[in-house]
């Protein structure tokens, strides 16, 4: 994924996140064996804290303040407006539409990328020869910049000369993503899935490798067909990976697909592919509606916080561990 480098989905990693929610003593290494210095830890933390304060806390507070103030057209002055900016965002109707677009885009991409990733991981796991070659072949698209993936798919399905468009034309399928919303959505989903299925493939491969061979052997002794065995035994054992990936895919589409939209559709046709992040961009840099952009940023921060809490809190409980 091209969003911030992901956190590992490992049960170990997530358990390691837990301590601060519970007991203080576990958050560091053991109890007594610590370096006793008073000043040194602050010096070690200083660079990190400075960067976080300047480029993280300050922008966050700025967005919050701006979302509560009304700024006039010249971007000067302004007075306290309470929740008026938020009300304006919701009243415009485009915010709801944009949320809908983002949800549809995220849902379809997640299902396709996970399905393809799981299918390929299972097939590669079963072959005896050429596993490592197959792994490279299905993993490399992960490294392709999303913007470049967008450029490749834009070229292939370009309505005038794209080789994919010509192929669709021969099959009598009308195609023009500049006009037809369905086509536009299909194209951005294809460009996203092409890349994201590699990410899902890698995680499912790792998940399959973690399943003990004895479990698989025991299951095969029952004489169940291999498909049945997969859904009854293997798939439930993969549930930590499956849950983790569904959250990560959704987060990816919500926050890291700006480049694909910007390259292929610029949000069109008729704002039909305008995701939440793309709408903030347009409000901030094209419509000069900075109050709306600030309010939408605050809403997005709330949304991503909820997603993350779901990820860390509920996934640990609901899924099945060996």
């Amino acid at each position, binding site marked *: 994924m091209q*969003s*911030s*480098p992901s*956190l590992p989905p490992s*049960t*170990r*990693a997530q358990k390691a996140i837990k301590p*601060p929610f519970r007991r*203080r003593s576990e958050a*560091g*290494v*053991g109890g007594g*064996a*610590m370096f006793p*210095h008073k000043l040194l830890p*602050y010096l*070690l*933390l200083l*660079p990190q804290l400075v960067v*976080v304060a*300047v*480029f*993280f806390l*300050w*922008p*966050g507070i*700025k*967005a919050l303040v701006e979302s509560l103030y009304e700024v006039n057209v010249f971007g000067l002055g302004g007075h306290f407006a309470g929740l008026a900016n938020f009300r304006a965002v919701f009243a415009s109707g485009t915010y709801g539409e944009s949320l809908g677009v983002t949800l549809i885009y995220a849902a379809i991409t997640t299902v396709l990328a996970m399905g393809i990733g799981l299918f*390929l991981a299972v*097939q*590669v796991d*079963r072959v005896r020869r050429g596993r490592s070659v197959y792994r490279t072949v*299905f993993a*490399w698209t992960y*490294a*392709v*910049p*999303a*913007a470049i993936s967008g*450029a*490749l798919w*834009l*070229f292939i399905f370009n309505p005038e*000369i794209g*080789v994919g468009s*010509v192929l669709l034309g021969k099959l009598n399928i009308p195609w023009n993503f500049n006009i037809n919303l369905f086509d536009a959505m299909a194209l951005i989903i294809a460009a996203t899935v*092409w890349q994201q299925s590699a990410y899902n493939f*890698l*995680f499912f491969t*790792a*998940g399959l*490798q973690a399943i003990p061979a004895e479990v698989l052997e025991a299951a095969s002794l029952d004489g169940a067909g291999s498909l049945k065995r997969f859904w009854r035994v293997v798939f439930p054992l993969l549930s930590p990976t499956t849950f983790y990936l569904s959250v990560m895919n959704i987060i990816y589409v919500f*926050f890291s697909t*700006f*480049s694909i939209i*910007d390259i292929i559709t610029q949000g069109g046709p008729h704002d039909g592919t305008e995701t939440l992040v793309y709408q903030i*961009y347009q409000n901030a*840099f094209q419509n000069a509606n900075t109050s709306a952009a600030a309010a939408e940023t605050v809403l997005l*921060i709330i949304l*991503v916080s909820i997603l993350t809490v779901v990820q860390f809190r509920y996934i640990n409980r609901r899924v099945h561990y060996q």
Partner: protein
Amino acid sequence: MRDSRSVSIVRHVVLVVCAILFAAPLYIAVVAASHSARSLLGQFPALPGDHLVGNLIHVLTVGFPNTSPVGLMLVNSAIMALGITLGKLVVSIPAAYAVVYFRFPGRMLMFWVIFATLLLPVEVRFFPTYQVTAQLNLLNGFPGLILPIIASATATFLFRQFFMTLPKELIDAARIDGISPLGFLWRIVLPLSLPNLAAIMVIEFVYGWNQYLWPLLATTSERYQTVVMGIQGMIQAATSFSVPEWNLVMATAIIALLPPVIVVILMQRWFIKGLTGGIN
């Protein structure tokens, strides 16, 4: 669980077909990049032509109207990606070390501040971050390209996770031997962290190289364009000609995707380890 011969053959056939589908967009890009713009107008050629080197040299040295030559963009991309990688290491290793190996007032608060940054990638906070970066006069420069990306403490978190798996007997022994805290970090913790260091470096390099939105906002001068964000201007320029120069756009696309793809393939072992963390 062993496949019969026929099942095994079917599996390989299915996998090879899938591999071809996966590679098709790249193949089409190579074919397009190796022809003249005019020969892409009619029937799409099935095989690569002989213009590849000429097209690559043209984009690297000349580029498009209103964009820098791709050669300069590559240098910018490399500086940004390496700056993000090294910057993250320099900032995150001491921070993770402090949180794991010291007890001090405010430690939990520090941990939570760092943890909170994980939630908000630059794509979520880009608008206020842009305003702050502009106020600090950091637009159109490498510090402005690099520092806001470093603010997300993913690497700090990953190093913290790893340091916590190191046996605590190490620090007991170090204290008995009278090793200073920085000596312990440099001589014991870092050497033990090398595989994780490699994994995190690969991930951060790819992450840095592939940035699009932030360079788009933080640079208005052609001097600082990166190749990944620069592709947008090239598409606009190329499609405005009467004969669209998709061959040159695809040549640039190949140049832009090769560095991260090569790094990932060469460092595959470390990369997968870093990406999937402790799952295996």
